[in-house]
């Protein structure tokens, strides 16, 4: 991949050729960014262990395993297969949207409107099916395109007008929340599909009567996202954009377009997530997704993707979502006070950032 980036870099200014690409790669590597930039070499058990310890995801992986063991010891209900599948289903929608947000964070941007996009697209999808008689799959395609279009607006306003994405997407959050209320009149929009309708089966059914289909959607989306991020030129451009934007521009990367595409990916994934939720509840609610952006951002941050870009991975995001899901589930199983969950989540977010910061300082 390193070779690939070097070969495809198109310097814009004289004298800004290969040396700049080297600089970007060195900077990304020193930031501990993508394992795709790691120079390959002979590696024994000791080398593999060292590589594991160097992984950005190592701290969150350790936390996930420790949390799993602790909860399993605390209550025998936790490690049961049906409970694990329950947790997996509960994090599916969050993890799908978080995949797009990981792309955005790595490229150095943020989207606070994800909860509202998700809620708004749910209302649009349900309305297309229930009020206008659209085929559910065609309606799904439309909302995915709409999600990408909303992302395009977010990305274009952010990159072309130089307005911070924090502000742009805060505005979009409010616009779409109001849009969902206006489109629904404040009431839920119910779809009346037969219980065995393929749309319901594929979006919220079970495979072999056991594994929720939402889990497969999550695996599919995250696997594809992980592949794109770690194995394609676009992925390396995403890292380069967030790692050092000026150097990336000098290396010929269209950073504005990279960021806009990431906003579009995030919006499109909100459309898919909305369909999965609609399939499960058969009702869309105008307030769905309120505050959800915080959970999604928490998953990404816990997973080791820094807010300032240039590093991170889909694996980390998955682990971050798993940690959040295990906390929510585990606290109920343990009979903890309902008021304690936000405290636990907040503490873990702070701890994750603290650990990540300490690790990065040690690397420096």
């Amino acid at each position, binding site marked *: 991949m390193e070779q690939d980036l070097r070969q495809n870099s198109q310097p814009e200014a004289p004298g800004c050729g290969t040396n700049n690409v080297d600089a970007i790669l060195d900077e990304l590597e020193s930031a501990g960014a993508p394992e795709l930039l790691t120079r390959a070499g002979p590696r024994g058990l000791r080398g593999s262990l060292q590589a594991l310890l160097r992984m950005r995801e190592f701290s969150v992986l350790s936390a996930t395993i420790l949390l799993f063991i602790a909860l399993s010891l605390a209550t025998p209900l936790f490690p049961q297969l049906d409970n694990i599948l329950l947790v997996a289903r509960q994090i599916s929608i969050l993890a799908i949207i978080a995949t797009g947000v990981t792309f955005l964070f790595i490229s150095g941007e943020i989207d606070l409107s994800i909860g509202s996009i998700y809620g708004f697209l749910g209302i649009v999808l349900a309305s297309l099916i229930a009020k206008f008689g659209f085929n559910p799959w065609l309606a799904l395609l439309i909302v995915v395109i709409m999600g990408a279009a909303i992302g395009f607006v977010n990305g274009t306003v952010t990159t072309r007008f130089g307005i911070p994405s924090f502000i742009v997407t805060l505005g979009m959050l409010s616009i779409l929340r109001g849009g969902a*209320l206006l489109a629904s009149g404040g009431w839920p929009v119910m779809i009346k599909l037969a219980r065995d309708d393929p749309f319901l089966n594929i979006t919220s059914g079970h495979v072999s009567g056991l594994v929720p289909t939402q889990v497969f959607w999550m695996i599919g989306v995250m696997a594809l996202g992980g592949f794109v991020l770690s194995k394609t030129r676009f992925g390396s451009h995403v890292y380069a954009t967030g790692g050092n934007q000026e150097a990336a521009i000098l290396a010929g990367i269209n950073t504005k377009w990279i960021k806009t595409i990431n906003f579009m990916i995030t919006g499109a994934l909100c459309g898919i997530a909305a369909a999965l939720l609609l399939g*499960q509840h058969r009702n869309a609610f105008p307030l769905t997704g309120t*505050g959800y952006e915080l959970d999604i951002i928490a998953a990404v941050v816990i997973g080791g993707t820094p807010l300032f870009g240039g590093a991170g991975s889909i694996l980390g995001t998955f682990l971050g979502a798993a940690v959040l899901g295990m906390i929510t589930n585990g606290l109920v199983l343990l009979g903890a006070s309902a008021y304690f969950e936000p405290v636990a989540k907040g503490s873990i977010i702070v701890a994750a950032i603290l650990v990540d910061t300490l690790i990065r300082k040690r690397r420096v």
Partner: protein
Amino acid sequence: MNRRDLLKLMAAGAGAAAFAPMFAGMSTPAFAQRKKRKVIFVTHDLNPFFVPAIVGLKDFGALAGWDTEFIGPPVHDTQKTVELQYNAIAAKPDAVGFTAVDSEAFIDPIKAAQEAGIFVVLYNTRAPGVKEATGCAYVGQDFIVAGNVAGYEICKYITKKTGRKEGKIIMPIIAPGHFALETRNLGGTQGVERYNKEFGTNFTTEPLAVTTNEAEAVAKFEAKWAAEGDQIVGWLASDFTHGFVGHMAVDKGLTDKFAVGGYDLVDFVLEGIKNGSVDFTIGQNPYAQGFLTSALIYQGLEVGYPASDIDTGAELVDATNIDKVMAREQLWKEKAKEFGLG
């Protein structure tokens, strides 16, 4: 309060009385020797309204020797509520109390609980169709009836305070799409229309989406008043935000300009009635929603009777009975502290 509402209140009281013998035996071995049970309540929104319901569950749980748990998302959120309901089922309790604020989304988790052999009773909110789909009994308010009471009452106060015969009644709502709140507004509009018909007035209603964040809600109220103050004659919240309207009225010296009413017995609403900035509130006996739901669960688990619906009424609280009500609600607050909830 009309005769029908009084009858409903009496019915709720009778329901409580029916369980009295059970509570009377709380110190007897017969009650204490029952199997230890785990009972989990899941709500759709952990706002202050539910503290008495939590205390009701804890009180009954203490009598029966149960392990009890009361959980819910910090703000109204159907997706998170359903997730918590499934988590509660995974904890393998003997019984659950669920709220069902939607006709479709809660049917699957309720059925999943029933299929797992868990006794289910609904409390606080049961959307249309849920009873037919699940057969679950419900302990809570009839929202159309409560809305009718409130709608009629706000008109009486408008006439009394302002002498006006027409104008706009604003209906703040913290969660548009929430079945209970929207239904109260529907009932409220019906109550207003009933009053118009009886007294030849021409009051109209208009919803206003707000949040539980007081600063944000008050900003909206102030903007609404600035824009349409000459038309607004009353505020009838579908929830407890009439307490916020009362704060605005005091701050701006508007207490005699309009009537203010709404629902629930949270602290700042009762304080508003006491200081005259709120005219009335409609209670729904949240303590009963915790306690009587638990009692239905107890008789189902231990004796085998099926649960049946209990209407917890529409208690009108105004200046005439505020002292008594405040004293009563203070009791629940103290109990909440005992359980580490206050």
